[in-house]
């Protein structure tokens, strides 16, 4: 039996097809987010289904998650990204005890019980500091592509100090750093440190290993090392970090477990 999960994030929409009999992903896809989220999700899911050689009627159930979950009309039900990320990460790494998810618009730290159930969580969704949005701002200010930031940070010899905990003020600091001749590489590394220190302060003292890093920001080189330094724990990047939410949604669809 095949189940689908859709993660309607702030920057991208992700879809996963999950074969519950084989307990494996049989298809997945990602599209940039847009105004008509529901149509985007519909078309993405159709693409993924076609690539997997299946048809819509093969899909038993669809669960939507993420920031835009309530606007996904094709979903049978919705479950929050907190529960879905926990489930998706636990599928890959059942031993995971902490999940750090940094997305485009929010970030969260999940504490998991043995068995993958969420014990507790903290979330930042009001302030762009501590989210991928900060990286977008710095990329735009430095005139580079978002995808190039990782390599730039790896070339940094000393991360620039960015003291503001607010992206708006930090942007002013970045302008000042550029004017004073600081290298773009060091500025990017400084922004990475700023994001991860925000996550560290949000997570508090109770960070139990293994710590798994998910979300689109986990794909940016250097972010995992910056996170390790900030929280003083070893950090493992999840398999398919962008897809953990959608995967969790698909698995929960298979469990037929509304709201859990």
């Amino acid at each position: 039996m095949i189940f689908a999960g859709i993660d309607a994030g702030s920057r991208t929409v992700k879809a996963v097809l999950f074969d519950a009999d084989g307990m494996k992903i049989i298809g997945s896809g990602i599209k940039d987010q847009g105004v008509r989220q529901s149509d985007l999700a519909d078309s993405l899911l159709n693409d993924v289904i076609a690539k997997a050689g299946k048809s819509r009627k093969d899909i038993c159930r669809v669960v939507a998650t993420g920031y835009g979950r309530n606007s996904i009309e094709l979903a049978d039900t919705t479950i929050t990204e907190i529960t879905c990320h926990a489930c998706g990460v636990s599928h890959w790494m059942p031993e995971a005890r902490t999940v750090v998810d940094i997305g485009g618009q929010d970030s969260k730290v999940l504490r998991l019980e043995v068995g993958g159930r969420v014990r507790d969580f903290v979330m930042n969704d009001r302030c762009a500091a501590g989210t991928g949005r900060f990286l977008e701002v710095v990329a735009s200010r430095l005139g580079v592509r978002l995808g190039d930031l990782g390599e730039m940070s790896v070339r940094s010899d000393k991360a620039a100090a960015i003291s503001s905990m607010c992206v708006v003020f930090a942007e002013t600091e970045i302008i000042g750093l550029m004017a004073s001749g600081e290298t773009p590489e060091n500025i990017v590394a400084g922004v990475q440190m700023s994001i991860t220190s925000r996550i560290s302060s949000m997570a508090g003292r109770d960070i139990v290993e293994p710590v798994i890093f998910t979300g689109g920001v986990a794909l940016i080189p250097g972010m995992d090392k910056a996170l390790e330094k900030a929280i003083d724990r070893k950090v493992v990047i999840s398999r398919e970090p962008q897809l953990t939410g959608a995967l969790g949604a698909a698995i929960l669809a298979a469990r037929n477990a509304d709201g859990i």
Partner: protein
Amino acid sequence: MNLDPAQITLVEWGRRFGELKQSGLPEPSYGGPLERHLLDGDFRLAKLKFDNSQAALNLWNFLLTEEDRLYADRLVGRKIIGTMKDLGTIPVMAYSLPDVTAFYPDGTWWAPCVMELSSGVLAVADSLGLDESFCPVRAMLGAFVSKAHFPNPDLLVCSVGATCDDFSAIAQRLNGIGYPILWWEILHRRKPESGDVPVQLPGGFQCTADQVLFVENELLRVKKAIESLAGVAITNDKLTDGIRAANEVRAILRELRRMVFTADVCPLPALEMLVAEMLVIHFCSDRKESVIVLSGLLAEVRRRILLGRGLFGSDAVRVFWVNPVADLRVMNLLEECGGRICGTDYLFCHAFDAIPEDVEPMKALAMMALADPMVGSAGDRSQRICNDIKYFGAEAVVISRIPGASHCATEGPIIADTVREQLGLPVVEIEVPPLADAMLPALNTRLTALIETVKAGRIQV
């Protein structure tokens, strides 16, 4: 005319009011259709969901006509006292006299929500230098200046010392623009040490006899000022009667909280409970009527529990809520997400405890003031919260931050850590501004995730 409990919109209340009228609804002097408050500018009501009982209608009408009562009191010559930063001490003293009304100017902090910013009080506060970096209670400053929400009081009393920094700044600004304030100092409560005479306070905290004596002397200054204003002495007998009457309100609310929070199926929604609890502070400017309103609510709750009727189903997640929200809509949201309120600490839970009647009345009031969780450490408050969570059997905790409020900047994390360590319950912290419309999706995610977390735990157990 009894219906099954339900939450209904303002428009639905209009229809229900018509039906109740036809069936011979007995109305208090402040009664009438709930919709009429929209004409006064209470636009937020159109976005809230209300309990459908007649008792709830009376509660809302009582709340939303306080301003009318205050102006009517002024017309008949009653003395009006504004008791600021006071969660249930001076009002007890003031209502011991027959021709004195005490009200709570700080309560204007809900005006920007209820009136959806149309009141303009925040803009006035902004113009006086108290912008959104301060607690929304700065709305009070705007209300004094605009003179639109309550008559100018004959006496303004405000506690200072172990109180919120931001409120103190706001009150000092009010003082500075020409509103004389009688300040009284409340000490930071401390545990007795060797050589101190310990005093056991209501609610379980301890302090020293010296502290009680100090606060009692401060309250004596306020008592003299009230006597001078009213031209009548507050004798021990009068104050004892006043304490007894205040304890009647507190007893009703304790019972209401116990019944609502521990019932298998929720008999009364969070929003009505929040409004009801607020009455304990200053009786919504009419102590006798507050007893009638709360008794009606308690009777309705008893009736529903006896009939086994309630709202939200028996699987609703039992949530303990810490701190009041600036936007009332969020209380509805919790229930839409699958939760129900089972315990609260809206910063004045000490006001539900009985004022001691076996000590001198002024000493009893001083003890009560020192029992306020906010005049002690965040650790003290956390402990009381944990005790209440256990008592009411809550499964999760929401800590609602108030933007700009700085009673204790580190209090939220301290409460969250204590709850996690002592009780192992999931905790979520949220921040709710006076109008949270733009944040509702994000708040929805957090509250829903909390509900999901508890439900997943139930299945695993």
